[in-house]
Structure formats: structure tokens, C-alpha cells
């Protein structure tokens, strides 16, 4: 009995779960960045972000079918490549547009309102997005076309790392690097950091706060769009409630790393991914969710502002 168990486990064991966790974690990180950037600028817990991600995946699903009727795995490589590329370009654009529009219409008039007011508005937006998703694709989970091969790239090592895993890493890592470069070195990125640090002072030196906020929502939305495409291709099934669960994980990741902190969101995403997979492997799937939130609480108890969050003193 035990031998049988060990044999099936020998296919990867700890290393395999770690690898899988890192792949999933980079996906969570991408969504977490949207939460953390918006929070960093206007201190809004954007509860609608997960549902934006869901709408993004529905949009991408439309792209897989629309340009050349139903793209499937046995279509020519060029067609698959073109479809994936199209998804990766148009979905982020759509999500960014929708996010900016939401901010313009709903959050902007509330800039000076207390936090709770804006949070409740965000909950309202989340409800609306979810309902739109429900109308759009119905209540049952939908198959996302299986476009990328499941062939193992590293046979012989005892681990499985498929083309799909590679796709996730190949999309998320450059995106995150590009974001870091953008925030560190461009004028707009500097303006963002300045606004996050001190909005009043940033405005005094001539930074247009509205523009910076709009840009933040655009980037956060685009990242959710990228994550939506990658998620669809990787998990191969989407439904209107997926924004809630994944949004919650991503949000936890953002908090774990220190909300408002960009490298923190990435670290948090990876931690959540790895903890979730290891939890699934060793505690069983049903306890892995509880484990994720348990870890969040334990970490916040010892580092009350997250792993990389700035330990600012409360201003008096």
C-alpha cells in the first residue's frame, strides 16, 4: 500500500509541487499587481478587480472563436500563435479600458469621500460585473480552447514542466519585468510613485493626479487582462464566479507582500501559489484554502504590514 503510494508520488514529489506552485503563483502575482497598484495610489481595496479578470477571460474566449471559427489544438501552429497573440493584445486593452472607465464614472467623484464609501462602491461594481458575466456566458463553467500542448519539456528529470507551464512563465515574467522598468524609469512611473508616497506634494510639483490614477487603473486592468488570457489557456475552464475565488487569492497575495508594494505583490503571489500547491499535496485540496488564509494571518501577526510593506509610523 505504502509502496504504491510512494511510486505514484515519485513522479515529482516536493519539487513538482513547488514548480507547479511557482507557475500558479506567478499568475496570482499578475492579478495581485492590479490590486496593489490601485491601493498604493488611492488606498482603495478594489473588490471589482477579480471580476474584471473574469470578464477579461470571457472576452478572450470570444477571441478564440471569432476570427477563424473555433480554434482548436489541431489547428496549424501559426493559427494558434496568431490567436494567442491576438488575445494577449486585445484582452488587456479591453480590460484596461473598462477599468479606466469604471474609475472615471464611479470612483472619481468619490476621491475625497471616506474609504468605506469607495469600498462599498467597489463591491457594487463587483456585483454588476458578476451579473454581466452571468448574462454573457451563463452560469455553467465553459471550456476554454485547449490551445497549448501538454507535452513535457523536461523528460527524464522526474519533473513535469509542460509547454503550458512555460507559456505562463513566458508571459508573466516579462510582463512583471516590464512593469518594474516602467515604474522605475519612466516619467509616468515616477509620477505614480510620487503620488503614492504623498498625493498632495505630488500635485504641488505639477503632477496631474487624475492622469496618474487613470494610468494606474489602465495598467492594473491590463495586467488582469493578461492574467485572464493566461488563466484561460492554462486552466482551460472559465465561469462567472472565478473572479471571486482568484481575486481573493490575488488580494491575499497583495496583502501578504505588503499592500501597495509592487515587489511585495509578486512575492506574495509566489508564496500563495506554493503554499496552496504544497497544501493540496500534503493536507488535501479542501484544507489548502484554509492554509492560505492561515498563513496570511500568521504572517500579518508577526509583520503587521506584510512581508515587504513599509513599516511607517502612524502619523499623529
Amino acid at each position, binding site marked *: 500500500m505504502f509502496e504504491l503510494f510512494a511510486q505514484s508520488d515519485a513522479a515529482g514529489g516536493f519539487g513538482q509541487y513547488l514548480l507547479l506552485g511557482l507557475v500558479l503563483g506567478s499568475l496570482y502575482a499578475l492579478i495581485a499587481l492590479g490590486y496593489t497598484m490601485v491601493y498604493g495610489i488611492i488606498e482603495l481595496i478594489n473588490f471589482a478587480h477579480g471580476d474584471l479578470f473574469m470578464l477579461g477571460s470571457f472576452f478572450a474566449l470570444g477571441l478564440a472563436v471569432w476570427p477563424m471559427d473555433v480554434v482548436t489544438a489541431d489547428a496549424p501552429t501559426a493559427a494558434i500563435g496568431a490567436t494567442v497573440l491576438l488575445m494577449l493584445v486585445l484582452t488587456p486593452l479591453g480590460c484596461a479600458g473598462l477599468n479606466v472607465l469604471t474609475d472615471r464614472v464611479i470612483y472619481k467623484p468619490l476621491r475625497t469621500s471616506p*474609504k468605506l464609501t469607495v469600498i462599498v462602491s467597489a463591491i457594487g461594481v463587483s456585483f454588476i460585473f458578476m*451579473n*454581466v458575466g452571468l448574462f454573457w456566458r451563463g452560469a455553467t463553467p465553459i471550456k476554454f480552447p485547449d490551445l497549448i500542448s501538454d507535452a513535457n519539456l523536461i523528460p527524464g528529470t522526474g519533473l513535469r514542466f509542460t509547454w503550458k507551464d512555460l507559456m505562463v512563465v513566458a508571459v508573466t515574467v516579462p510582463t512583471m519585468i516590464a512593469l518594474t522598468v516602467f515604474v522605475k524609469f519612466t516619467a509616468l512611473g515616477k509620477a505614480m510613485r510620487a503620488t503614492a508616497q504623498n498625493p498632495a506634494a505630488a500635485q504641488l510639483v505639477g503632477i496631474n493626479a487624475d492622469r496618474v490614477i487613470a494610468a494606474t487603473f489602465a495598467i492594473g486592468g491590463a495586467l488582469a487582462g493578461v492574467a485572464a488570457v493566461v488563466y484561460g489557456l492554462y486552466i482551460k475552464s472559465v465561469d462567472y464566479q472565478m473572479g471571486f475565488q482568484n481575486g481573493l487569492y490575488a488580494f491575499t497575495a497583495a496583502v501578504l507582500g505588503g499592500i501597495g508594494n509592487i515587489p511585495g505583490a509578486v512575492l506574495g503571489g509566489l508564496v500563495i501559489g506554493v503554499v496552496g500547491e504544497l497544501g493540496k499535496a500534503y493536507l488535501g485540496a479542501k484544507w489548502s484554502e484554509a492554509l492560505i488564509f492561515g498563513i496570511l494571518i500568521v504572517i500579518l501577526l508577526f509583520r503587521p504590514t506584510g512581508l515587504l510593506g513599509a513599516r511607517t509610523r502612524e502619523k499623529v
Partner: protein
Amino acid sequence: MSVARYWVPALFAALAAYPFLPVAEANRGEQFTILFVYAILALALNVVIGYTGLLHLGIAAFFGIGAYTVGVLTVPFFPLQQSFLVAALAAAAVSAAVGVMTTAPILRLRGDYFALVTLGFGLIALYAIRNLDAITEGTKGLNPIEAGPLPGVKENVDLGGARLNAEWGTRWYKYPYLYFVILGALGGVTLLLRNLERSRLGRAWVALREDELASSCMGLNPARLKLAAVALGAGLAGLAGAFYAMALRTTGNPAAFDFTLSMTMVCCVILGGLGNRSGVILGTFILIGFDRIATNLLDNYLQEQFDSGAKTYLKVSGWRLIIFGTALIVMMRFRPEGLLPESRHQRELHPEASEAEGEAAAREEAAAGDPGTEGGEQKST
């Protein structure tokens, strides 16, 4: 506030009279009972968010803990077989204890981090309830919950006199007296909170909410006050959970205690008027009433009116979340203080109005007591 003085007792009187009216329907009675349960839950949450200003996003956990405490104490599956009264009190006590135990270590977390940890706690509690099948029967829920009303009463008597007319038993659901018990509990909780607001503790909470540093300088102990608020809030939420399980006769699917419930309750509290008891009750009746009662009525009505292919889109239940979300957004935009605002909160949200008021008052004061202000200036120089 002056309006609320009259309409709240009037509302309670109307609801108490409802079962005796000719329009009364059995299933409506059950639906109202559930509304009362959620109103108690919203009042509980209001103690934590409204009075103390701690954003708690896991109130559903206490609701669930209350429901399952009742389940464990009453269902035939366990040997305890307690009465309704004992079970409800135990549920409140267990929830309050869990509330204190889970909040004490995280009091040092600031603002949003506190909210997030309570969110996490709420989810862990939900997963625990769902996964501990040995105790909670997983997604099936604990049932049947058929506790006698008082200790020593083994069977579920109909309380003879509560059978107010011959049709009661057939027109009303199994425990008709629960309607009155839960309505009474809601009234009791409202009165308790009213008195509490005016007490030393209630005023201390408000002081803490307005300025933690200043109030601690005045000798208040923030940690103890916050724990007291969470204990009371969690205890009342547990009581609400107990009534929920009683009214449904089962703990139901644990999914009923998920994050959506916590969020909905936050919305009820804010929509009604953060910190204002009457507002919170009204907000709950409107939101949950819309969700549980009005959508069905409108659905039936619309289905009768149209029988074309457009039917699927003409279902109000399909548009539920959009209506819900739009209402929240519109409210936050134009009336963020809620339907029945608490006066302090109103001033905070509409500073221009209160400033104008303050200026007018200052002018009056200046006109009335010029010598006083001059005297003050002389002293300071």
C-alpha cells in the same frame, strides 16, 4: 432621529400584528422571520463597524458558529439534546468567545490590515465548518433541529395559545412562535443597543472611533473597548445564527455563511446608515427583503405579463446583482451617509453643511457674548 422615534415602534407593532391580519401568508411569515434574523446580524455588525469603527469583514463566521452551536446542541445525531433557550444562549456565548480569541491577537493591526485578517478568519471558519464533516456533516448541514422551546420541554409544543386561529397550523410553518420570538429578540436587541449607546461604554466607543489617540490620552483603554465591541458584536451575530438554524430547522449549506454574506451585511449597515440602529434595520429590510422577497414577487408578476422569448431577460432575479450593485453605487455617490444617517457621521460626510452650521452658531455666539470672547483674548495675551 425624531422620525425614527415613531416609525420604529410602529414598524414593530405592524410586524407583530401581521400574522393576525387577513393578508397574512404562511410563506411570507417564514420570509419575514429570516429578515428579522438578518436584522439582528446587521445590528451586531453595526456594533463593530458603526460604534467602534473597526471594519470587520468576517461577521458571517460568527453567524455560522452560532448556527452550528445550536446544531450540535440540539440535533438527534449528538447526545446533548438541549432546549432552544439553552442552545441560543450557548451560541451567543461561543461566538463571543471565538470573537474575543480571534480579535485579541490582531488588535495591533491598523486599518485595512485588520479588515483583511477578519476576512481571512471568516473564510477559515467557513472552510473549517465545511471540512469538519465528522461534526458538521459537511455540505448537508446538521438537521433536523427540533428543540423544545424551554429546558425540560422535550417535545416541540405548539404553545397552545400561540395557535391564534384555527388555520394557524396549516397556514403557518412548523414553529409559528419563532416569528414572535425572533421579532421579540430583534426588539430586545434594539432596546439593549439604544441604552448601550447612551451608556459610558457606548460613549467611549464613539470617542474611540472618532480619535483613538485622543481618547486613550483621556484614559480610555482602546484594546479593551475594541474587544468589548467585538465580543458583543460576535455574541449577537451568534444569536442571529442560532435563530437562523432554528427557523430553518437545519444549519443548511455552509455556503450560506460565506464572504458574500459578510459583504452583504456590510452593505446593509452602510446603506441604512452606519451607526444608526433604525437605519441599519431599515437597510437590512430593504436589501435582504429585495433579495429574498421582492425579486420572487416581481419575477412571478413579470412572467405572468409576458410569455415571449424575452422571458429569460425579464427575470428580476437574473438582474439581481446589477440592481443591487447599482443601488449601492448610486447611494454612495449621492447619499453616502445612508438612508437614516447618524448625526456625527452625517457631519463628517457633509463638512460644508456642518461648517455653515458652525459658522452660524459662532456668529450668534459672537453677537450674544462679545465681552466673553474679548475676555478670552485678554487672558491669552
